[in-house]
């Protein structure tokens, strides 16, 4: 049995300011096997991006309080010193962002930025790093790669810039790629190209990917497994097919029903009433209770424990019956 690549145990992230204390991530646990693609699905403010940044320790140290355990490739991320963190970032775990323009240095040619990373992590010369950058540009299918290495970030189109960022992230063959809405800012015809590219690269390189998105369609295109986040908690996880076909949690079901996708025009869309809760004042029980069609008095008392009605599927909802006895 292979060891899991990522183990997150009861992760919580608090942002502390003078006025308030916001629990952005609230007891998130998951494990990932090597080569798995997991989608974190959730709306803005659900804590999906904060979870990603916690995995790489990218959150501001002074203003965030992180509790719980994070182990990546057997190493405790929380216990790492600066040197160990630098080694991990880029080499074991790397990240791509929604807006590549802000992730690149605007005054350095993209080829040199990739070469710098390779030279630093691999201990090779800058020249060897440039050769690696050229291979990577071919890998991510950037046309006229040689010429594009000398381009500045602003000279590339949105799709090419995102490909260049993927090349940068893959330059040291990470075991885990964190992708934070990498296709959200792209045009429709370009988004599908980048999704297909990421799927192919993931299969060729056998890496694990955590893919953050708010788009159910994107999750359906790329995920093996989906974790649905709401108000800082994972409310449901399961294999992508099962989760999209027979959602367990009322929030997942509501999200699926309210996504506009060829519904009849003469009828109103199904909606989830209300709005996501204020993270400074979360309701005491299930965070979704105020909007839930299946709410009962018991929902308001305690946070629902995870139940698993089928292998591989978990939901935190009192209305989901644990059909099979849970094996620890």
């Amino acid at each position: 049995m292979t060891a899991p690549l990522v183990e997150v145990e009861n992760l919580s992230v608090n942002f502390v300011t003078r006025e308030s204390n916001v629990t952005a991530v609230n007891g998130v646990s998951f494990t990932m096997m090597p080569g798995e693609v997991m989608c974190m699905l959730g709306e803005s403010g659900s804590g999906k991006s904060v979870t990603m940044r916690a995995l790489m320790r990218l959150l501001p140290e002074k203003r965030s309080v992180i509790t719980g355990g994070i182990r990546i490739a057997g190493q405790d991320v929380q216990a790492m010193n600066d040197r160990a963190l630098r080694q991990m970032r880029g080499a074991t775990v790397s990240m791509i962002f929604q807006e590549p323009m802000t992730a690149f240095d605007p005054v350095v040619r993209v080829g040199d930025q990739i070469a710098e990373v390779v030279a630093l992590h691999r201990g090779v010369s800058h020249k060897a790093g440039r050769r690696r950058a050229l291979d990577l540009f071919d890998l991510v299918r950037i046309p006229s790669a040689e010429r594009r290495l000398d381009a500045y970030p602003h000279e590339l189109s949105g799709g090419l810039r995102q490909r260049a960022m993927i090349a940068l992230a893959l330059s040291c063959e990470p075991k885990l790629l964190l992708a934070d809405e990498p296709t959200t800012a792209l045009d429709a015809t370009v988004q599908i190209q980048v999704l297909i590219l990421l799927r192919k690269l993931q299969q060729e390189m056998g890496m694990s990917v955590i893919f953050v998105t708010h788009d159910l369609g994107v999750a359906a295109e790329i995920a093996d497994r989906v974790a649905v986040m709401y108000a800082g908690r994972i409310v449901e996880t399961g294999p992508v097919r099962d989760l999209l076909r027979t959602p367990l949690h009322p929030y997942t079901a509501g999200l699926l029903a309210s996504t506009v996708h060829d519904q009849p025009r003469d009828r109103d869309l199904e909606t989830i009433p209300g709005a996501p809760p204020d993270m400074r004042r979360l309701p005491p029980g299930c965070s979704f209770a105020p909007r839930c069609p299946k709410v009962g008095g018991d929902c308001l008392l305690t946070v629902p424990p995870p139940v698993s009605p089928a292998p591989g599927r978990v939901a935190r909802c009192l209305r989901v019956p644990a059909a099979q006895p849970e094996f620890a």
Partner: protein
Amino acid sequence: MAMTSFAADAADERDRGGPQQPLLTVTDLRKYFPIRGGVLGRTVAHVRAVDGVSFTVRKGETLGIVGESGCGKSTVARLLMRLVDPDAGEQVFDGEAVGEQGGISVAQMRRQVQMVFQDSASSLNPRMPVQNSIAFGPVAFGARRADAVAMARELLTKVGLNPVLFGGRYPHELSGGQKQRINIARALALKPRMIILDEAVSALDKSVEAQVLNLLQALKRELNLTYVFISHDLGVVRWISDRVMVMYLGEVVEIGPADAIYTGPKHPYTRALLASRPALDPDQRREEAPVSGDPPNPVNPPSGCRFHTRCPHAEPVCSARAPSLGDATGFGHLAACHMQDAGSGHTAASVLQ
């Protein structure tokens, strides 16, 4: 009775041309934005943002405009409101030419056409309680302040917000969905006949987006409104639109009834756009992207048909001559593609006829 003042009248006294007269007809609209460069700041090139766009919007219908970034859809919206001045083109609102002698003035047109923007926060004054923001337009047009605020509170009810709770709040005290409801209420304050919605639901979370879309449909029925709905979300546009216009690099490539466009797209770009939608079914994943590359730069658009650089059916005629859309002010299903034109010289043209 105050509550009835927003009900749609059976016959709108502002209606000039009758039900058959289109509410809006746009002919050959053009806007080139200059790019200045060099020491003297001379114009060195133009962004051809909107390049000869013609269309018609009927009374009571929703025209959806789709396209990728840089295709000119938002510029069209701003031109219709005259937030930017067109370089060329004619705009006729209910039979009257806008901004021309003997026609309707831009100010008069703006009373009847309102707009809702994508960014709900930056389109509201942060220092003004939202009910005053809503009342601002009527006051500017001469209404008494007390009357305007009373009407604003009535409008808040209409967009699903309790005026007692929300009327005195400032924009930062509201969620994104609530702010967009305020923007819709403000657009309604001048009792417009047409509302231009420029990516009005794109920034909202999915669960809130559906609520706002339902609200827009309900308001349209109740108040007899006509919408121009601009979005990059093809699913949303199909649900809300009666007819759809597809734009690419400043030009209209296809226009027609929504169902005809979605079930039988004629232009290769429309087909590619529809095929690029994620499948929502893990067993139907796309293996091959429908088209490669990014949309070209609108500064120097490709010659002939602007899509020929990415089109799988491109032939020499496509780069030599621009295909024509035909009579875009009609209501049929039209596509600007040489394959749709029997006499164009494209080898696939005769097959299709």
